[in-house]
């Protein structure tokens, strides 16, 4: 039962990872790539780590419970850190004057 749940969670997470990686490779400019990188990773790591934490509870004991809690702590830190890192990278790009890709290939200065 727990095994099935673990497998489903991990495979779903893996699928999201896969899709975001494809997105990182395919999107036209780095702003759009950050959309793939910043969003997909969070949910995917949440799903995978939850699956792994569940599997870890197979042989239940207090120490295993604490290890699972630690894994969930990792999720919490990723939740705090990942959007911040995304934002930091985007800010760096904006600061160094990368123009976002647009349909008409306009090159107007977005920053005045």
């Amino acid at each position, binding site marked *: 039962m727990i095994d099935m749940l673990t497998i489903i969670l991990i495979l779903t997470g893996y699928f999201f990872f896969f899709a975001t990686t494809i997105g990182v490779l395919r999107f036209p400019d780095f702003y*759009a790539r950050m959309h793939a990188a910043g969003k997909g990773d969070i949910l995917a790591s949440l799903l995978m780590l939850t699956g792994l934490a569940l599997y870890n509870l197979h042989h239940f004991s207090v120490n295993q419970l604490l290890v699972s809690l630690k894994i969930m702590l990792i999720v919490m830190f990723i939740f705090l850190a990942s959007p911040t890192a995304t934002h930091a990278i985007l800010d760096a790009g904006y600061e160094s004057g990368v123009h976002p890709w647009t349909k008409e290939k306009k090159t107007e200065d977005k920053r005045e």
Partner: protein
Amino acid sequence: MHFIYTFLLMFGFWIILSGKFDLFHLTLGVISSGLVALLSHDLLFKDRTQKNRLVEVSRFVQYIPWIMGEIVKATLHVVYLALHPRMKDLIDPKIIRFRTKLKSKVGRVAFANSITLTPGTITIRIVDDEYHVHALSRKVADGLPGEMEERLHRVFRED
């Protein structure tokens, strides 16, 4: 006061990390938490108002399910775009700017990170109360600030 809060939080974190409950390790935990609280007690709770912290936390907990739903939507949106063969026709990125009515720093940070987590938008920077946001398409760009700001305004309102 901040010292005690930080100490308690750190000690809870230590209990989860350590997993050893004999006297020796608990003493080490008390010493370590005290040291961290001494070093950085001004970091965790710097600009919060003293009185309604608990109310704020409880309201924020109610906000979490909604934002989780948004994260799921955002991921599906990205997956759809990434695997779509004619992806470049679907997206039309632009950078938009708007002002916020959120006052507190916490609220602004939470709003910025929530924008990053919702479909199609990422916060680039905050200049005073102006947000610069990169949006993947015009439709999501028009949706800002919208519902999320209302919700966060309810969470972090100062009353």
